[in-house]
């Protein structure tokens, strides 16, 4: 595109342009600013206050953050939740994205029939509510129902079965894998779309040179869709901080057993709203949200400066 703006609009009188901008941009900017940006800023401001039982608030500077990171009563669950978030993220990066890439690669092979059917079926879990998916897996993995243990027994691996969701050692990884099962459709679709955009001539040239499908995929297609893969990684990173629904619906706000599945989302919810063990504390909740915000910001900056700059984009 050599000329992004048409000549006609470039010659528009100023007052008319201002009126049009107000009309077209006004509603979106007002709603977005009021209900998205303002609450974020107000939450950060609130994190520098403390409230006493009577409800009056007083400014305390960074004291909430010192408590959160310094007081063992707060810092232990905080680091535990952050560590669990990291495990949750790593499982997604190591399982969800490779499986998504592999499925996209298979679907984009020339001459595979029933593509539409496979895509539709594989994307189905992504459309469902996390709550429903979490609960359904909860039933399936339950020793009470015995579907999972029965299935393992049928293939002679009955001894491998354990109540994975109930054990402190395996609950978090199991929940991560449930989330992977649900959301693998997103990397699959985005990478599939990117693979379709690779020009035929490139693939044909490689084939003429005698490369097999396997090497074509790894040496030609995969490097060309790297920008999409890095976008998927960023989406995975941000989604990681939204993963409250799954833990809450399967394990409740206490993220049992013994906080083994506690992530920042559930920790934030408990701090803000309270639970059986503690009263809700909005100002500490705001402090937790602020820390989460800076962790996301740090992750995005690392991505922009370390990864994005090194990725070369190919224009076709």
């Amino acid at each position, binding site marked *: 595109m050599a000329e992004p703006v048409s000549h006609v609009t470039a010659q528009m009188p100023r007052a008319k342009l201002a009126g049009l901008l107000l009309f077209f941009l006004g509603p979106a900017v007002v709603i977005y600013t009021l209900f*998205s940006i303002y*609450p974020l800023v107000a939450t950060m401001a609130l994190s520098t206050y403390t409230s006493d039982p009577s409800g009056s608030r007083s400014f305390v500077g960074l004291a909430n953050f010192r408590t959160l990171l310094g007081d063992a009563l707060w810092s232990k669950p905080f680091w535990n939740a952050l560590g669990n978030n990291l495990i949750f993220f790593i499982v997604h990066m190591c399982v969800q994205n490779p499986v998504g890439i592999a499925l996209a690669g298979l679907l984009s092979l020339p001459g595979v029939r029933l593509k539409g059917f496979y895509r539709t079926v*594989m994307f189905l879990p992504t459309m469902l509510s996390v709550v*429903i998916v979490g609960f359904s897996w909860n039933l399936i993995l339950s020793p009470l129902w015995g579907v999972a243990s029965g299935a393992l027994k049928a293939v002679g691996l009955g001894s491998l079965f354990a109540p994975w969701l109930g054990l402190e050692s395996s609950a978090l990884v199991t929940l991560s894998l449930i989330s992977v099962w649900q959301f693998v459709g997103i990397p699959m*679709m985005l990478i599939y779309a990117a693979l379709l955009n690779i020009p035929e001539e490139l693939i044909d040239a490689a084939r003429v040179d005698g490369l097999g499908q396997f090497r074509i995929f790894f040496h030609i297609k995969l490097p060309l869709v790297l920008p999409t893969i890095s976008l998927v990684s960023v989406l995975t990173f*941000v989604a990681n901080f939204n993963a409250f629904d799954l833990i809450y619906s399967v394990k409740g706000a206490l993220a049992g057993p013994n906080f083994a599945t506690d992530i920042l989302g559930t920790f934030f919810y408990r701090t803000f709203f309270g639970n059986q063990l503690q009263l809700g504390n909005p100002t500490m909740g705001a402090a937790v949200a602020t820390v*989460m915000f800076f962790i996301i910001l740090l992750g995005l900056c690392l991505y922009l400066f370390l990864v994005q700059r090194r990725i070369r984009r190919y224009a076709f």
Partner: protein
Amino acid sequence: MTTDQRARSIGVHLVLIAYSLLAVGPILLVVMNSFKVRSAIFGSPLAPPDASTFSLIGYEKVFRSSHILLYYSNSLIVTLVSMALVLLFGAMAAWALTEYRFRGSTALALFLSIGIMVPIRLGSVAILNMMRSAGLNDTLTALVLVYVAQGLPMSIFILSEFIQQIPKDLRDAARCDGVPETRIFFEVVAPLLRPAIATVAVFTIVPIWNDLWFPLILTSSDSTHTVTLGVQQFLGQYITDWNSVLAALSMAILPVVIIYVILSRQLIAGLTSGAVK
């Protein structure tokens, strides 16, 4: 086709079939067992319901002990109103950002894109305070406002890419005929955005229907619960009643699956059209 190629093609299909089974198996299992009597749910979980094991007792219980239809209508209202506003305001803003040159447009685009990367949930403490002081606490309006704010950045991003693909000549021709800008947008450009609706729907509307967080925080009475929250609370209460639990899960799954199957062609075409790269 040589035997070698045939063997490879069979291998590819085996992998795809295996993964497809893994993807739908659990959903099928829950829906299938929701139509069975309790003894059959536990006795032969993998068998489809037959004449002797068929039962709708779980569904009867769900209808009797929860306001599931009310939850459906709440979810429907919230999702449809949010979708209409996200699409309308999103398309209008995307149009202004791509079509007009003005000072600060890049800054504004950056400002709007913050919402794509930073989850709006982090502002929950302040959102709840705001809704309380505006008297909107425990209303569907509060949910709609939050969801529109949440959906706008992504929809503006996707719709901008679509608007850029519309030929410039089309609107300039209309301009030369003296058609006002608002009519150019609503009568020439907006109808051309129809294919983008599917992409916007996947990225902004589906998360609204499925959301648990904001209903949990902003609605407290049963009459404002959405399906996701209503079913979640029902499941918590009736956790030992397997008929009801499976029926409630199926009732949350089936409408989504039916709509998805009807619209899947457009949805997937929208997703793979390259608007999101």
